[in-house]
């Protein structure tokens, strides 16, 4: 597999990719999900969840850097042999496809609720997927550039809207701090980590990164920006609604920005803007996932190009995204998926791979 030099990404693009992959649809539902476990201490839980995610990233980085010129797929091959390697690689394909279908279904539900009441969900999903597929056919660098254009806009809009929200916040809703049982804290962290998932994609485009020594730095900044955005949103939500009311909401983040009015002429009812914004964030997440999954498939089938695998995934994503009955069920499946499957794919399998590799090397040394 030859990697062309013009398909390399700079460290800034790497940072942008991290942020784009991590900030996805989770941000819509996260505040209420965290409030279920941690009440008014959600912000602590999110902070801890972010830090733990970063630690997991460091672990993965250490594993991936054992051979920085190949992707994780080759590492799997060298650890488990050809057959098992392909099986485990397919696990990652399934992981990304399922992840994509959750994102798709949730953004379609959100858009249907707030923008297109009469448009069928299927149409929304198909259009969204085709738009994603169109871009994902290109390489890593094109997608990184696209995210470079979209991401700063997203962050700026969130910050601008937050300014207008600020005047009606009551920060006493964040009291009392830290009266939270350890068990619930751990449960809460488990539920937030899903919002940070997405950083594992770097395992699969490591060869495309120009400065691998600066990857840690860009990832650190990527995590910082993501944690900052999440923190702003969860603190503002808690301060605005209070934790009890937040638990009753499906889209707390949307409700937060929904009633921003500026002079009743400039901005009124910006929810369509906010939904469009989350569509863009989901879009950036989705294109990265689609591309990574097709890159894995290209490695498995040993083809030069990955672009025809992109459209091959879309039917599966479409079918999977239509399985849950409603938003709540989707979230339940998503929690289930993140607790078991994501933990296995992101933490356990890389660890096993690393142990096996070390063991094999040791065997070689002796």
């Amino acid at each position: 597999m030859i990697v062309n030099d013009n398909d390399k990404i700079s460290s800034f693009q790497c940072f942008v990719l991290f942020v784009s992959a991590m900030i996805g649809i989770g941000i819509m539902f996260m505040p209420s999900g965290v409030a279920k476990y941690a009440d008014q201490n959600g912000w602590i839980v999110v902070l801890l969840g972010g830090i733990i995610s970063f630690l997991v990233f460091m672990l993965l980085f250490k594993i991936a850097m054992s051979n920085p010129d190949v992707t994780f797929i080759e590492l799997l091959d060298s650890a488990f042999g050809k057959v098992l390697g392909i099986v485990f690689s397919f696990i990652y394909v399934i992981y990304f496809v399922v992840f994509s279908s959750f994102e798709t279904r949730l953004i379609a539900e959100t858009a249907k609720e707030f923008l297109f009441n009469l448009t069928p969900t299927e149409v929304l999903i198909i259009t969204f997927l085709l738009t994603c597929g169109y871009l994902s056919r290109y390489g890593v660098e094109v997608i990184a550039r696209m995210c470079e254009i979209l991401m700063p806009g997203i962050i700026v809009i969130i910050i601008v809207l937050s300014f207008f929200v600020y005047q009606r916040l009551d920060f006493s809703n964040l009291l009392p701090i830290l009266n939270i049982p350890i068990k619930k804290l751990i449960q809460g962290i488990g539920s937030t980590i899903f919002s940070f998932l997405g950083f594992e994609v770097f395992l699969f485009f490591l060869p495309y990164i120009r400065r691998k020594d600066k990857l840690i730095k860009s990832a650190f900044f990527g995590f910082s920006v993501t944690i900052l955005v999440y923190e702003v949103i969860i603190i503002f939500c808690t301060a605005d609604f209070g934790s009890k009311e937040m638990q009753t909401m499906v889209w707390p983040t949307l409700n937060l920005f929904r009633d921003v009015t500026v002079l009743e002429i400039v901005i009124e009812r910006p929810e369509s803007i906010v939904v469009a914004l989350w569509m863009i964030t989901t879009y950036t997440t989705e294109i990265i996932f689609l591309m990574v999954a097709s890159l894995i498939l290209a490695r498995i089938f040993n083809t030069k190009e990955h672009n025809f695998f992109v459209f091959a995934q879309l039917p599966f994503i479409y079918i999977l995204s239509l399985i849950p009955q409603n938003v709540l069920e989707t979230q339940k499946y998503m929690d289930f998926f993140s607790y078991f499957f994501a933990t296995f794919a992101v933490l356990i399998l890389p660890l096993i791979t690393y142990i096996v590799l070390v063991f094999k090397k040791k065997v070689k040394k002796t």
Partner: protein
Amino acid sequence: MRRLKISGLALMLFIIALTFTGCWDRIEIEDRGYILALGVDKYDPSDLNKYESKEYIELERKTEKIPPDQKKPEIRTDKKGIDPKTKRKVKPPLPTKENQYKFSVTVLFPNLRMMSKTSKADEQMRFLFVRPTNNVLGVRNYLERDINKRLYYGYLKVVVLGRDLVADPGLVKEVLDSLNRDKDIPQNTFLYVSETTARDTLNTMPLVQPVTGIHLFEISKNATVYGRIIETPLSEVINNFINSKCAVISRVEPGIETLRIAGAAVLKNYRFVGWLDEKQLIVYKLLMGKAKHTLIDDLKYKSTYVPFITTEVQTKKKLEDKNGRIKVIYNLRIEGEVNQFVFQSGYKVLDDPMRSYIQKGLNSIIKQKAVELVNLLKFKYNADILGIGDLISKRRPKDWERLKKNWDDEFKKIDIVVVPDVRVRRSGTIY
């Protein structure tokens, strides 16, 4: 291979053509009816009869700018709503025993034609529809048979609840849920409790602003400035109900040509327990730190009432524990100005002894009124609208665990002390 490519392209084009042919959800702006106000009443079986009563027709004549020579044709109907002359159905049938409704909902939306230049001089400013329904927001679906517009709740400004409705907790819960659940309704919609029925309120055409919804909304927006009105947006009411099961909702008094917002209704466990009059409301707003420009004119000097207008109010709450009893101390720092005194009285308002006389007098007045209000809330209404429970749960979570099981009784035991500190800062252009 080429053929495959071409057919693939054709398929793509077909799908794109199918999915991109404009939005399913496109609505032209003139096809929409923007509901500005919603009135929700408990349904009364004699309702429709009442609506045909003389005083209503009189009121309609007064408010609908119809020239006196054009008389409205009087239609008399039987019980089924059928006109005996023409045998046509003209009104929804009166309810029978099998056909029981829960609400009668009033919908008000402005006449957008008035804004264009083609409008006639005698056109109505706004339209009012009343329908019996079982579902508050579902009234829109009842009305689609009568109105050529797609009714839209996105610009709802005002929701008025009838006095009969708030006496029934089940109905209040249903109304709150529907308002909270709907995605279009802005959370800063103002809620009111009408002194009579919501329909009377919305039927009133105030002289200054005939579109009732806008009238109420604009008065409520001033609540941050003036003291006798309280603004109760939907989000706040819902939040208070969730956190403390009590809420304050602004009161509105319907009249013939005026519509006054004054005082507030106190609800506990979704049930109406009593009113707060304007003077009590001033003190309540001071305690909640919501008042900015409040007029307090109860202080007497000889035979003159000295008016005092607050300009800055800072409220600080402290919790103290005295041998097991929790004491809440409100420190009110009130700055303001005196804008009327006696001409050539020989005193300077900004100088002692007059200044200290005014300050001490106001302190004692505010303190006394606060005590009255606290006693009213503690013993008569037993409604924690001051948010004391919320305060304890935030500052002293351990105590709250003990108190919350029996909060209604514990609330009576809590000492609430108000320490006002009034400062006269200005006195206009003369001393």
